[in-house]
C-alpha cells in the first residue's frame, strides 16, 4: 500500500513534469523509478527535529492520527470478490468482521465507517496546526478544518443517492447491485449497470467534495504555499511530514476507490473468456486497479491544470452551490425511486 | 453476557462526572463539553435499554425495542443544535467580554 503511495508520488511528479513540459525525476534509476525509494530513505535519515514552544504530545500525535485514520478508511474497502485460496474463502479486503469460518466478511456499514473515519481524520489537521504554535499553521489548520467540515456535508449527501438506489450501506453489496447492464423497457441496453449514469450529478458533487476533503488542488488552501508557507504542516519535518504526506495520498486512494466502488461498478467489467483460470480469478482486481488508477491520474491531471480558489469563494461554493445541489439531487432521486417502486 | 446494570452504572458514572465538570470547570467551553458528556451518558443507557428490551420483550408490545436507538438519534440532533447555538453564543460572549471564564461572566444577577 505505502509502496503504491510512494509510486503515486513518482507518477505525479512525472505527469506534472510532462504537463509542464519538463522531464520530472530522471536521475535515480531508469526513468527515476528509484526516486521514491530515495525520498523514503531521505525522510527516514533526516533528523526528526521538534520545534520549541509546541505542544509536544499533540504535535507528535497529529500526523500519526492523520495517517492512521486514512489507513483505517482504506482498510474497509473491498477491492475484489471473495477468492478461494487453498480451501479458505476470504474476501479481498483488508479488515472486516472475522466470522466463524476464520475468513473475512464485509462490514455492513462500511460506507458509514469510512465517512466517520475521514471525519476523525480532520483532527489530525486541526491539531497539527494548533499544536505547532505558529500562525501559519494555525490559519492553515483553521482553513483546513473549516473546509473539511463544510465539504463533509456535501460529500455525505452526494452519496445518499447511491444508497437510495442500492438500498444498503455495505460497499460490497453496493458493488453487487451494480452488476449486469441497464435494462430499459425490457431490452438490454449494453450499458453497464453503473450508478454513474443515474447519479452523474451526485458523482460530480462527490468528486468536488472529495477533492476538497483531501485538500487537493483546486482546494488546497490549507497548504497554499504562496499565502501561508505550507499550511498546517509548516513546522513539520522528516518522518512526521512524511506521515502527513502519505496520509494525503492514502486519502486520495480512498477517494478513488470509493468513486470506483460507488459509481463505476467496482470490479465489474467485461467478461474475457480467453484468459486462463488464474487470470479469470484476478480479472476483477485488475479492473478495479485500472479504475482506481484512472481516478488517481485524474487527480494529478487536475492538479496540473487548474488554479487555486480563493478561500471565501471556496466556502461560498461549498455551502451555496454544492450543498443545495446535493439536496436537490437527493430529492429527485428519491422521487424517482419512489415512483419506480 | 454483560449485565444491564453494568451499562447503567457506567452511564451513571459518566453522568456524574459530567455534572461535576459542569460544576467545577471554569472554562465555558469545557462546561459545554460536560453537557455533551452527560448527553452521551444518557445515550448509553438508552442504547443499553434498547438492547435489553429486545432480548427481554414484554408481553404486550407497549415497548418498541429499537425506540431507544431512535431516541439516541434525537438526542444527537438536539445536542448538535445545542452545540451550534451554544458555541455561537460563546463566540459572541467572548467578543463582548474578552473572556471564557464563567466566573468573570456574572452579569446575571440583580
Amino acid at each position, binding site marked *: 500500500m505505502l509502496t503504491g503511495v510512494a509510486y503515486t508520488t513518482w507518477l505525479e511528479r512525472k505527469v506534472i513534469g510532462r504537463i509542464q513540459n519538463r522531464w520530472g525525476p530522471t536521475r535515480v534509476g531508469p526513468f527515476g523509478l528509484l526516486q521514491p525509494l530515495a525520498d523514503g530513505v531521505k525522510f527516514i535519515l533526516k533528523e526528526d527535529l521538534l520545534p520549541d514552544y509546541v505542544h509536544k504530545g499533540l504535535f507528535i500525535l497529529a500526523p500519526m492520527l492523520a495517517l492512521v485514520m486514512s489507513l483505517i478508511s482504506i482498510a474497509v474497502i473491498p477491492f475484489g470478490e471473495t477468492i478461494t485460496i487453498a480451501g479458505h474463502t476470504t474476501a479481498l479486503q483488508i479488515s472486516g468482521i472475522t466470522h466463524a469460518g476464520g475468513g473475512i466478511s464485509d462490514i455492513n456499514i462500511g460506507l458509514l465507517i469510512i465517512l466517520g473515519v475521514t471525519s476523525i481524520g480532520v483532527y489530525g489537521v486541526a491539531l497539527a496546526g494548533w499544536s505547532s504554535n505558529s500562525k501559519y499553521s494555525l490559519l492553515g489548520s483553521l482553513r483546513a478544518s473549516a473546509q473539511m467540515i463544510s465539504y463533509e456535508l456535501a460529500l455525505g449527501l452526494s452519496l445518499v443517492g447511491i444508497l437510495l438506489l442500492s438500498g444498503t450501506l455495505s460497499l460490497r453489496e453496493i458493488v453487487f447491485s451494480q452488476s449486469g447492464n441497464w435494462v430499459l423497457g425490457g431490452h438490454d441496453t449494453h450499458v453497464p449497470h453503473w450508478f454513474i449514469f443515474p447519479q452523474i450529478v451526485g458523482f460530480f458533487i462527490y468528486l468536488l467534495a472529495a477533492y476538497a476533503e483531501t485538500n487537493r488542488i483546486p482546494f488546497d488552501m490549507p497548504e497554499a504555499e504562496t499565502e501561508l508557507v505550507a499550511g498546517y504542516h509548516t513546522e513539520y519535518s522528516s518522518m512526521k511530514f512524511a506521515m502527513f504526506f502519505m496520509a494525503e495520498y492514502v486519502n486520495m486512494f480512498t477517494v478513488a476507490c470509493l468513486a470506483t466502488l460507488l459509481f463505476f461498478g467496482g470490479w465489474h467489467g467485461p467478461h474475457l473468456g480467453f484468459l486462463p483460470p488464474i487470470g479469470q480469478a484476478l480479472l476483477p482486481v485488475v479492473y478495479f486497479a485500472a479504475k482506481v488508477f484512472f481516478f488517481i491520474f485524474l487527480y494529478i491531471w487536475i492538479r496540473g491544470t487548474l488554479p487555486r480558489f480563493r478561500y471565501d469563494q471556496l466556502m461560498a461554493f461549498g455551502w451555496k452551490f454544492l450543498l443545495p445541489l446535493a439536496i436537490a439531487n437527493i430529492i429527485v432521486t428519491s422521487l424517482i425511486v419512489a415512483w419506480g417502486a | 453476557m454483560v449485565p444491564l446494570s453494568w451499562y447503567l452504572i457506567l452511564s451513571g458514572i459518566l453522568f456524574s462526572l459530567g455534572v461535576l465538570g*459542569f*460544576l467545577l470547570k471554569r472554562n465555558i467551553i469545557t462546561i459545554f463539553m460536560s453537557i455533551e458528556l452527560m448527553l452521551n451518558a444518557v445515550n448509553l443507557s438508552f442504547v443499553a435499554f434498547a438492547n435489553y428490551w429486545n432480548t427481554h420483550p414484554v408481553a404486550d408490545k407497549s415497548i418498541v425495542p429499537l425506540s431507544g436507538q431512535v431516541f439516541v438519534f434525537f438526542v444527537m440532533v438536539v445536542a448538535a443544535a445545542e452545540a451550534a447555538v451554544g458555541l455561537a453564543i460563546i463566540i459572541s460572549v467572548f467578543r463582548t467580554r474578552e473572556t471564557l471564564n464563567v466566573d468573570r461572566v*456574572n452579569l446575571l444577577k440583580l
Partner: protein
Amino acid sequence: MTKNLNLWVIPLLPLIGAAINGLLGRRFKNAMVSAVALLFTAASFGWAAWAVWSVWPGSGVALPHIEVLTTWITAGTFSAPFGFQLDQLSMIMVLVVTGVGFLIHIYSVGYMAHEGGYYRFFAFLNLFMFFMLTLVLANNYLLMFVGWEGVGLASYLLIGFFFLKDSAADAGKKAFIVNRIGDFAFLIGMFLLIQHFGTLTFAGDTGVFAQVAKLPQDTGWGWITITALCLMFGATGKSAQVPLYVWLPDAMEGPTPVSALIHAATMVTAGIYMIARSHAIFNLAPHALQIVAIIGCITAIFAATMGLAQTDIKRVLAYSTVSQLGYMFLACGVAAYSAGIFHLMTHAFFKALLFLGAGSVIHAVGGEQDMRRMGGLRKLIPVTFWVVTIATIAIAGIPPFAGFFSKDEILGAVFHSPYGGPVIWGIGVLTAGLTSFYMFRLWFMTFFGELKLGSVDLGEEAHTAHAPAQAAHGAASHSHGHADDKSHGHGGVHESPWVMLGPLVILAVLSFVGGWVGVPQFMGGHNEVEHFLAPVMQSAPAVAGEAVSDKDATTSHAGEATPENTREEWLLAGTSIAAALIGLLFAYLFYYKSPELPDRITSKMHGIYMMVLHKYYVDEGYGAIFVKPLLALSTVVLWRGVDQGVIDRLVNGAGTASQGVGNELRQMQSGNIRSYAAWVALGGAAIVAYMIWLGVTR
C-alpha cells in the same frame, strides 16, 4: 304560561347610568349628566312598568314570576341563584322605587343645579337606584343582602355628599355604622336560615317559605323566633326603628332630594319590605311579632314627640319619617303586612312630597332651614304652599287623602290583633294626633305669620346652642351647600323653577288619590291593595293563631261586613280622624292664633321641653353608654394593644425578617452560572432520591 321579561334589565339600566356618569361624567356638561341619569332612570321605570303590566294578575302569568339568570354562589350543598322575582309585593316596591326615584331625579336637576360634583351626585343616585332595585327584585336573601348593603353604601356616599363638611362626613359614618349593626343581625339571621333550610331562596318548593310552611308554630323562643328577631333587628337598622333610629335625623345632612328619595321614600322602607317578604317566618313566631309591634309603636310615639320640638324643618320631617316607619313596623307586628305595605306606598308619596316641598322652601329662602326664621311664605311660593298643604293633610291622616286610609288600615288591624290591642291602638291614635300637630305646626310656622328671615332672637339661639351639634350643622349644611345661591339672585324669596315644581305637583296628585286604591270595605270601597297583596300574604300558612285569623278579619275576610264590624270600623276611623283634627286644632292655636303660647308652655314645663328638644338625650346616652367605652376600648386595647402591639409588630417583624432572609438569599443570586448549576444539581439529586425512595418503599 311563562314569558321572559328580562327583569335583570331593570336594575342594570341605572347601573349603566351610574357607570357612565361616574366614569365619564367629570368631562360632561351638567345637561349631559342629567340627560344620562334621567334617561336610564326613565328607561328603568318604563321597563318596570311594562314588566308589571305584563305579569298583572289576569295576564295569565304565574306569580311569583321568577327569572334565574345563573347560579351565583355554590358552596357545598348551598347554592344561591342569581335570580329575580316579581310578585305583587315587589311590583309595588318596584313601581314606587322607580317612579318616585324618577321624579326625584327630575327634581334634583333643578335643585342641584348649582352644586359642585353634579355628576358625582347623579352617579350616586343611579347607583342607589340599582341597589334598591336589586334589593326589591332579588329572589333570595343573599342577593337581597347585596342590594341591602349597596343601598347602605349609596346612602353613605350621598349623606356625605358634602364631604368637605365634617358634620356631613360624620353623619355618613354614623349612618353606615349604625346600619352595619343591623346588617350584622341580618347576616346572623341568614346564617340561621342556611343552617336550617340549606337555602336562601324565597319561593319554590325548596325555597325557604315552602319549608317554613311545613313547620309548626314556634310558641316559645325557638330558633325560628331567634331568626325572626335577627331579621327584625336588621330591619330596625335599615328602617330606623328604636333603638337604631339615631342615624336617620343626621342623615338630613345630605342634599334634600337624597333625604326625600333615600331617607323617606325608598331605602328606609327596605326593612319593612324585608319583614313583609319574610312574613311567613314571622307568622310562626308570635313573640317576634309582639316585639316588632312594640318596637314599632314605641318608635312611632318617641319620634312623634321628638318631632314636636324640632325647629329645623328637615329634622321635623325626619322624625315624622321615623314615626311613620314605626307605624309600618307596627302594622307588620300585628301581621297586617299588606296594610304596612299600603302605608309604605302612600307614605312614599307624601313624604317624598313633603321633603321636596321643604327643599323647595329651603331653596326659596336661600338655604335657611330653621322654621323660626320662616313664615308668611304662603303668598311668596304659592305652588309649594299648596302641594305642601296637600302633603300635610295627607300625612295628618284626614280623609280623603292618602294617609288616612293606610293609617286607618293599620290602626284597625292593631285594634283587633292580639299583638296590638287597645293600649297600643291608643298609642297609635295619640301618635296620629301628635303627627298632625307637628306637621301643621310646621305648616303654620312656615307659611303663615310674617317672614322673620335674618332676625335672630338670641333666646332661641341659646336653645339651639345647647341642642346637639347636628342641628347647628344641619342649618349650616345648606347655607354651605347653597353658598353660591345667594351670589346669583337667589337671595330674595322666590318660587322654585318648574323642573322642581313639576314632580311636586305629580306627587301631590298621587298623595291625594294614592289612598283610594285602599278604600276599605265599610266605606263602600273594596280595598284593592289587600286583594292585590293577598296571594303573597296568603302564602303564609294559616297557623299563626288568632293573629292570622284577625288579620283575615281586617284584611281579606273583610268581605263579609257584618254590621257591628262595620260600626266598629267607623268608630275606629272616626277616632283617628278626630285625633288628627285635634292635632290640627292645637297647632292652629299654638302657632297661628297665639304664637306666644308655646313659649309659655315650654317655660312652664321646661324640663320636659328640653328633654324633647334634645331628643331624650338618646344620642348623648348612646355616646355615654356605647360610643365612649367603645372608643376607650378601641383606643387602649385595640389600637395601642392589638394594632400597635401585635399587628404592627408582626408586620414589621415580617418585613425585617423577609429582608434578612432576602439578604441571605441574595448570596444565592450570585450571577454565577456554576452556583446556579449547583442548586440545580442539588434539586435533581433530591428528586432522584425521592423517586428511588418511592420505588423502594413501594
